[in-house]
Every structure is written in structure tokens, then in C-alpha cells.
């Protein structure tokens, strides 16, 4: 790995090679399940420094793998040995323009930052379920948010992308200047450059009716069946997520949840409390044990799902399904509910549809999701080893095979073939754009080629 020596001193000294004191902590992504040893880890602070790293890596015969927080690190596993891991955490610039209702976030900005800043001026961003997730990585990968059923994917909100290409040139792509790269940034999941900043629309949402309902998991079948029926007619202003959750006994979780096995429904309803309460009345009628719904500031919604902020080793996999009839609930609860022997942390069913089902007016590599639910299995290693966790998850996802879509949401389906992430035409166009921006394959692609 001596060729990486050529990078030393770049990025103001923030380059760590194997054997350096900070190498080991710098190479670890948020998802600690990925334990890679890249040729170097670099933390450039602006596009000029990114360009220097990219050029030096190319000259040294190394590849470049951009990474933000590393929440989506699993697809990089086994592919970083000859690569410089280019971490974007030093690029922390963030501005919110109240007049145009837009934000400009550099590649190290997290959703929690955007939500806090925008919230101060009565705006909201289409954030992911955890405040610690990076804006750029999640936006490039599509971005399903609590506002998606009304407003579509976060990637459709992108109005400009700034990036450094494989030859070190800096490009600002907008609808007018470089529509191809902008199109690719909207859900193309990367592989065409190092994105250094995104500009995107914010929503004029000050508050929303949001909260969580919970029951003992003995009620999983009854609750999920009713929720499946309810969701078919739910207004687009409401986005909900149901989970079978085997809550660990961790101190930072609320007492009423710690160590419990639950079926939970989180939901966000845009609008006032009265309309919100009306829209979830059908779920309340199922007599939950816990009910935290209230009209809350939009900035609080990012904390609704209680995701861990500290790096954690997790296995995750998902399928898109069409509909959730009673048969499907039965199949799912059989393998994930009481008596199933499942050790998964949770199985989550995220309600899609609404604007997510329609092609976004602005177009983009990913402009809709082909499925009415995203079913996500997430597991921790509880001492049984990762392959047992994976088997658990696959068994649960396979139970829904009759309803499963041929499409996949790759940001949460790391093992799916890359072409399932896009329509055939979009996938072809995406590959063409990647080839033209990076003819020699300098960048480690977001999905392994062997998955294709």
C-alpha cells in the first residue's frame, strides 16, 4: 500500500494511512459491520482538496470511494483494498434560504443539522428516519422521508449538485448547465464523482401531528391486518411505519419500551392536530397501550424513530411489496412474531404510495418507487453470528414473496442486483453518464458489479 504515501500531507494533513494512529477509527463507518482496510482515509474540506485527493489517487493507481457517515457502507465491503476512502465529514457548510425555501448542504452535513436550521425559520427538510444520516448519501440514493407520500422522494427535491469528476474537474450541475448529472444525482446513488454539495427544496412545514402507538406483540396480527386495510385509504398527508420491534434493554430508550416485544406504528400527518387525529382515528380504535401523538414542531420529527446515533453493527435488507392483504400479514407474523424464533431487532413496514407511486414531475434516475410498502428487516448480532441474522432476515422477507415487487430500493437492499434499482431505460442512461464522467472506473461504484 506504499503508493498511498503520495497522498500524505494533502487535505491539510487529514490523510491517514495504515499504521497511522487515527487510521483505525477513521476507516470505520457508522455501520460497524463493515470492517475494511482501505489504502488511505482522507478528509478533504473543500472541492479543491477533493480534486487534489482524486488526482493523487489516480496518479498512484488507487481508486476513490466517497463516503459520508457510512450508514450505507455495506455495499463497499470487500472492495476498498486498493481505494482511498474519501470521507466528506469536514465539508460542513450549510445555508438555508428562507426566501426561496431552499437549502445548500455540503457533503458532511447531517439531516439533524438541516432540520434544526430549517426549523428555526419555519421550514422542514425531507429527512431520513435518523438525524445522524448524511444528506448527500441518502439523497443520492433516493430518500424516503416522513413527507414522501405527499411530496415524493427527497432526490426529486434536488435543484443543483456540485461534484468533482474523475479527472479532478469541479462541476456545478443544474437543470440549465448539466441536466444529465443533475438527473443522475436524483436517485442515481453515485458512482459519477465526489458530490461536494447539494441544493434542494425545503417544505413550508412548521408543525405536524406525529407520534407512536404501541401494543404488546401478541396483538401483531390484529394490528397489522387493520393497519394494512387502513393504509389503503389513508390520505397522502399521512405517512406511517409499522414495526415488529424486539426492543433491546438500552438505557437511552424510554422506560415504557425497554426490553419489550412490541408492535408499533409511527406516523406523521401534515396539517393540524384535528385533521391528524381524524386520520389516525382508525388506528387509535385498536386500543394501543402507548400513544404519544401530538402536534409537534417539524424539527422534532427526525427523532421519532429512536435510531441509535453512535456507530452500530447492523444487518439490514429489504423488499418492496405490492399490497398487504391479511394473508401477507399472516405469513409475516408467522416468521417474525411471537413464537417465530426470530431474533431480528425489528421488521419494519414503511407505507409508500401517494406521490411516491407517481413519476416525479422533475424526473431523475429514481422518480418513484414501485411498491406500496417497503419491508425492512434489521438485525444486531445477538451472539448467533451474522449469517444467522441474515438467515432470519431472508426468511422473513421471503415469506412475502407472493407480494414482492421486481424492483428494489437499493439504499436498503444491499444484496439486490443493481439493475433492480431503476427502470431498464434509466439504468442504461445512468451507466452511460457514469462512464462518461468516469471513463476509467476510478470511483468505487455504489453497488458491486457482481450484483448485476
Amino acid at each position: 500500500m506504499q503508493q498511498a504515501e503520495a497522498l500524505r500531507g494533502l487535505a491539510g494533513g487529514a490523510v491517514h494511512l495504515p499504521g497511522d494512529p487515527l487510521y483505525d477509527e477513521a476507516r470505520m463507518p457508522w455501520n460497524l459491520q463493515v470492517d475494511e482496510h482501505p489504502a488511505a482515509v482522507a478528509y478533504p474540506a473543500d472541492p479543491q482538496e477533493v480534486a487534489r485527493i482524486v488526482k493523487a489517487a489516480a496518479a498512484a493507481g488507487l481508486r476513490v470511494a466517497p463516503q459520508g457517515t457510512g450508514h450505507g457502507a455495506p455495499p463497499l465491503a470487500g472492495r476498498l483494498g486498493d481505494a482511498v476512502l474519501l470521507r466528506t465529514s469536514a465539508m460542513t457548510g450549510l445555508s438555508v434560504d428562507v426566501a426561496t425555501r431552499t437549502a445548500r448542504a455540503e457533503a458532511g452535513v447531517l439531516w439533524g443539522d438541516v432540520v434544526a436550521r430549517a426549523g428555526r425559520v419555519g421550514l422542514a427538510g425531507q429527512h431520513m428516519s435518523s438525524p445522524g444520516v448524511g444528506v448527500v448519501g441518502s439523497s443520492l440514493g433516493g430518500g424516503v422521508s416522513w413527507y414522501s407520500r405527499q411530496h415524493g422522494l427527497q432526490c426529486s427535491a434536488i435543484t443543483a449538485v456540485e461534484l468533482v469528476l474523475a479527472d479532478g474537474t469541479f462541476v456545478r450541475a443544474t437543470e440549465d448547465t448539466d441536466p444529465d448529472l443533475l438527473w443522475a444525482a436524483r436517485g442515481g446513488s453515485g458512482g459519477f464523482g465526489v458530490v461536494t454539495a447539494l441544493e434542494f427544496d425545503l417544505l413550508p412545514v412548521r408543525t405536524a401531528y406525529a407520534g407512536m402507538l404501541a401494543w404488546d406483540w401478541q396483538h401483531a396480527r390484529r394490528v397489522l391486518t387493520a393497519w394494512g386495510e387502513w393504509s389503503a385509504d389513508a390520505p397522502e398527508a399521512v405517512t406511517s411505519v409499522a414495526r415488529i420491534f424486539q426492543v433491546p434493554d438500552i438505557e437511552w430508550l424510554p422506560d415504557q419500551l425497554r426490553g419489550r416485544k412490541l408492535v408499533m406504528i409511527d406516523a406523521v400527518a401534515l396539517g393540524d392536530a384535528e385533521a391528524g387525529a381524524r386520520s389516525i382515528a382508525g388506528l387509535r380504535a385498536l386500543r394501543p397501550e402507548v400513544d404519544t401523538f401530538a402536534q409537534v414542531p417539524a424539527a422534532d420529527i427526525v427523532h421519532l424513530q429512536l435510531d441509535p446515533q453512535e456507530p452500530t453493527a447492523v444487518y439490514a435488507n429489504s423488499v418492496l411489496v405490492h399490497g398487504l392483504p391479511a394473508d401477507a400479514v399472516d405469513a409475516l407474523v408467522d416468521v417474525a412474531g411471537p413464537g417465530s424464533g426470530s431474533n431480528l431487532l425489528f421488521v419494519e413496514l414503511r407505507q409508500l404510495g401517494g406521490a411516491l407511486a407517481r413519476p416525479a414531475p422533475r424526473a431523475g434516475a429514481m422518480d418513484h418507487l414501485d411498491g406500496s410498502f417497503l419491508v425492512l428487516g434489521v438485525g444486531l448480532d445477538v451472539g448467533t453470528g451474522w449469517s444467522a441474522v441474515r438467515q432470519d432476515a431472508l426468511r422473513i422477507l421471503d415469506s412475502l414473496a407472493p407480494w414482492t415487487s421486481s424492483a428494489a430500493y437499493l439504499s436498503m437492499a444491499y444484496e439486490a442486483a443493481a439493475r433492480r434499482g431503476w427502470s431498464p431505460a434509466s439504468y442504461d442512461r445512468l451507466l452511460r453518464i457514469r462512464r462518461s464522467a468516469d471513463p476509467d472506473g476510478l470511483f468505487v461504484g455504489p453497488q458491486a458489479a457482481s450484483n448485476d
Partner: protein
Amino acid sequence: MDGQPELNLHVLGELTATRDGAVVDLGGRRQRAVLAALAMQRDQVVTADHLVDCVWGDHPPANANGALQAYVSHLRRALEPDATARHRGGVIARAGPGYVLRLPPDAVDAWAFEAAVEAAAGQAPGDAVCTLETALRTWRGPAYADYAGEAWAEAEVARLTELRGVARERLLATRLELGEAPLVIGDLEALVKEDPLREERWRLLALALYRAHRQAAALEALRRARQVLADELGVDPGPALRALEAEVLAQSPTLDGVTTPSASVSIPRPRTPDGLVDRDREMALLRSRLDELTDGTSGCVLVEGSAGIGKTRLLDELRRFAVAAGVWVRSARSSPSEHGFEWGVVRQLFGAGVDDAIGRDDRFAALRELCELTTGLAEEAPFVLCVDDVQWCDEASLQLLAYLVRRLDGLPVLMVLALRTGEPHEADELLAELAADESVTVVRPAPLSEQGTAALVTDRLGRGADPFVAACHRMSSGNPLLLRQLLRALADQGVPPDAAHVDTVRAVGSRAVASLVTLRLRRMPAAVTTVARAVAVLGPEADLMAVADLAQHPEEDVAAALDVLARSEILRDGHPLDFVNPLVRDAIHADIPTGERALLHERMNRRLKSSSSHPGDAGVPGS
């Protein structure tokens, strides 16, 4: 939201409207004037006649009312495109002899601004600061900028401008109340400059200077106020300013203000650079030496440690104590560029009074005479002799220091020297001799502990999550300079100290201190960068006028930039102008682009030539 499109009107700047965030085409200047005139009257009916006056002034068209109706109708279509023509008129409603604007109170930025300023008056200081800052940010230019100078707009523009001025005063007054005196001085200077006849601004400025321990500057500000008021209005300062002047002269304790902000302050705010942590032992030693000095006992302390460990800070604290105890302090700071400048440090310490002594050819005679001079001074009153960065001290001065150490006994002089270790220097022997002298106490400040680091994180960013603090500690190795620069860089970008931002700490904190500083400087306004570079080029010669001359900016702007640099912990807060650490100066100097550096040096040389007849300027080093 709520199903209804959200309509917003912006008048604090050029007149624009947005509908669910999308910009609405409001048409030409005259058509927009209708909307402007309606917004000014808020929920009052504006007569058609008045609107015609606003739009056309003295030259209305033949069918003015018809033309006005057309404008109204176009505006309604733009503002409510979804409504059918019959149902439009919700926003611009027909009312009696004219029209009225029907929008919720927060839909027009000027209305929301006014409400926020009123709300802030009843809030706890921490909340009020947030309210006022947010409200002031909604201004994108002068109010109703498109209609500046129009007679019909004059009163409302003046009213809003006045309201903004009051809001800015209140914001700074509230921050002053929260203990941020050193941070608001630059902004107050700017306010005073904008309108020197507003006494409240002078009062706040003087008060801030006083609380930032700059009494002389506070009195000077009050003097300037008196002058301006006399020159411009021929009046004396009002009772508030006169009372303040008397209180400053009397050092009245009432001026110190409330120091405990109310417990409801939830948003952590960056505070003045005051946190000194993990230095209790060192401070206790220096204090006791100072107490002994006032009892007539001599002493010599050598503060030794690596770059950035906090030696200068200890010297600063000692000076503060000494001044508070009424003890004289003589200070000098050596720099590598002055190393070859014979007697440079002695000159800094004693001024022109030593010219005769150091003019002697015989070094020993000079030393003896300087020693006598020191004795004479000490007999008048005890004093502290501080020399920072003594590793760069010129040899002649260092000889004097070593000579004095052996002859201090019985003299009320406390000598405190700071020595950077790990730096090759020529005077090793003399310094080793000094350090070995049994009358010298050596103090070695230790790296900061994790608890000390946590305290500084809380000070700068708010209470830090454990992994965040641990990362800060690891990245800085407990070096206070590194830690402060790291925390400033994070604070500049609003990074919250939570577990999710540990990698941000790693990313920023694993840069070398030089690149950390230059990165921060690159993110500041261009004028601030230029001023910092000018200070770096000037070195010890830097003063306000010289910097203004080199940077080619007006002195007021330079003063504001210097304040920004001081509160960003790039420059030291106080005089003379100097960087927080020579490493910082070197980093900034090395980062100046070649062309700009040549230009700055050229200007400096010209400056030196034009004042070369001045003996004090001899021997200024180039760099």
C-alpha cells in the same frame, strides 16, 4: 401547508411574493406598487385614489381607475391562480372606496418582523437573542427597496428602518447582558458608525468595552460621543451617557451587569474566550508569587512547555491579577524575526529610558547600568517582568535576564518567563543556566484532561456527548491551542456536540493546526482574510493604521475585522495586535498567495521608507 397554499409577501428588500415557496411573478414596477401600498397599510383600507397616487404620482393616465383595476386583477391571478375569477379577491379584497390586503400576520415579513421585535421584549435573554437574530435575518435589503425615495413610501420605510435599528440595538444589549461583551464590540462599532448621533449605541459600546476590561477604550468612546454630539448638534451627552461616564470613572460594580443568564436559556451560545481549565495549580503558584511580591519578595518563574500548551495564557492571567492588585507589569514578547535585533526585548520592557545604557559599547557596563535601572524602578514600586517566547529572545536581552536573576534577591521584582520547548535556539546555554538556577521555579503546564476538554466543549458548543468530547480530547492531545482552534472551527459551522458528529471532529481535528487556521480564515469574509494577512506580514509593527494602510481598507472596517479575528481566536483579544500563537501567524503568513504577499511586502517597505527618519522604526525585520 394545511392544504391551503402558503402565500408570503416579502417587503424587507425588494418586493417579492412566494406561493408554497415558489416565486410568484408580480409583474412590472407599477403593478407591484399596488401591492406595496396595500402592505404598508396592513389591514386598513387603501382608497383607489391613494393607490393611483402611489402608482402614477402626478401623471395619472386618462383612465387611471380602469388601469388600477387591471393591475389588481393581474395581481389576484398571480397570487391566487387556483381560484376561479369570481372567487379571487380573498387576498386583495375590495372594501368600500378601495382595497385591503387580507393575509395572516406572519405572511408578510415586515409584519412578522414587527411582531418578533415586540415578542422579544418579553422573553428571557437567551430566547430574545434567538428571536431577534432570526427576525433580523429576514431583511434582504432596505425595506421596500424598489420604492425608496417615493414620497408615499417614505414614512413606512423610515418607520421600518428605525424598528430595525432598535432591534439591532436590543439584540446587542441582550447579548451584552448575557456576558458576551467582547463579542459585541465589533458590531457596536459598526452601529455607532452608521448613526453616531444615537446615544444608546455609544452607551452600549462604552459599556461593552468596560466589561471587556478595556477601560481606557470605554472612556475614549465616551469622549468621542461627547465630541460628535457637540460638533453635530451642539449639545452635551444625555443623562444616560453622563451617568455611564461617572460610573466608569468610579469603576462602579453596577456596571458588571447580570452575569447569570436565566435558566430557561436552552440554546447554547458561544461565549467569550474566558474558560481557563486544568490550570489551578499553576494559577495558585503565580498568585502566591504575586502576593509575595507585594510583600517585597522577589521571584522568578519559568513557564515551560510545547507550542500551544497555554504558556501565554498563564502570563495573561498573571498580568490580569497584577493589574487588579495595582502592581506594575512590564511585558515583552520575542519573535524569531527579532532574534537578531540586539536589545529588542529590553527595549520592549523598558522603552526609550534605556537608550543610553544599551548604547554603550561595553556589554558588561550596559548590563550593570540596566541592572541599576531595574533596581531603581523596583525601589519606586514593585513590578512584574514578563517575557514570552524567551527562546527567541535576542542574546543581549537574555544576558540581562540571566544577570538579573542572580541579583534579584531582596528586590521586589517578579520575573516570569515563558519558554517553548522542542524548538532549536541559539541561546541554549544561557537558558539552561537560567532554568537550573535554584531561585527559579519551573512550571510545566500539563495537557488538558478529558474533564477540562469537556468544560471547553461546553463553553464553545454546549454540553458535549461523551464520545464527542473524547474525540475532541484525542484529536487535540490535550493541547489547548489545538482544541480551541478545533472548537472554533466547529462553532463557526454550527456543528452540534452530539454523538452523530464524532466523525466531523475527526475530519476537522486531524488537520494540522496551520491548515485548520487557514481553512477557517478562508471561510471568513474576504476583508477579514486580507486584514489577517496584513497583520501577519507586519508582525510586531502591526497597529490599526499600519494594517489599514497595508490592507487598503478604511480604518473602521479594519477595526471591525480585527474584532472578528479576536473573537474567532485568531488574534489575541487586546493590545498590541498579535496572533494567539506564533504558529497561527506562521500558518497565515505561509498561506498568503505569492502575488498578494509581494504586494503586501511592497506596501510595507514603502511605509517603512516614508517613516525611516523615525528612530523607533529602525531594525524592523522583513519576513
